[in-house]
């Protein structure tokens, strides 16, 4: 889908929808079982930014990493999740995954 000068694929549109839904959940104070809404919103925004910087050919490792990062928010503090996300990117680059 082309919006102005930008082209969005379906995954990015789904990320946008996720951000809107999370924003509504935070605004109306809806509970999301087990997950912290603000943590999820932070992760999804960072995933969207990272997705925009990566070519589509690297979608598979990127989405595996994103899903693991989202589920890690259940177990470890958000700071460690963000560190894990960036460190995994560096390791992906070193291992020539991306």
């Amino acid at each position: 889908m082309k919006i102005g000068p930008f082209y969005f694929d379906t995954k990015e549109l789904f990320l946008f929808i996720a951000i809107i839904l999370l924003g509504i959940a935070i605004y109306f104070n809806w509970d999301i079982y087990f997950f912290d809404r603000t943590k999820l919103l932070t992760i999804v925004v960072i995933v969207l930014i990272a997705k925009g910087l990566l070519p589509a050919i690297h979608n598979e490792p990127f989405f595996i990493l994103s899903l693991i990062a989202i589920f890690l928010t259940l177990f470890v503090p958000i700071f460690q999740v963000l560190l894990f996300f960036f460190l995994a990117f560096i390791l992906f680059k070193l291992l020539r995954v991306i």
Partner: protein
Amino acid sequence: MNKTRIKTIIGIVLALVLVLLLTSQIFWGNTPRFHPLLWSRIKSFPNKVISLPGEVISLLPIPFKKQAALDDDSQASSFFGIRFRETTPKAKKETVSDDDSKARPTNVKPKEITSLDDISVVTPPSYVKFKQVAEGIKRGTDTKTGTEYITYEAGTELEIVTYTLSDGSKVSVLVPKF
């Protein structure tokens, strides 16, 4: 499973292990602030690596015995045929002559210093050699009597610091101001 997927899993697992193990060592309480002990940890890391073999050896279960039990050679422990005896350096026995005991009375409690007037000023014998122990302060010992002399150069700033010992007595010492 192709090569990229294997590398992806390796990258994710390695990142997770590194984060879980190192975050608490580097960062302060899950915040982006660095740990206050980080620099000292980095500085002591080479020493830790060097002392690692010694620590590993010290963990080996070598059955050392106390010196008292080792008076008899038959009680010395052995490890793979090598016999060990624990030895401790014997304390050097001091021989105190009559002259020395006069020069160094042992039962004199240090006097509490409240001002510089409490310090007795004497002229040391000419053969006493002085060595600098701090800026503006020299110390020398009379080898014949054992009396210690301390000289303060003019202009040296000193302060009186009082310590309370474990037996409750107070000791005042002169400490140079830095």
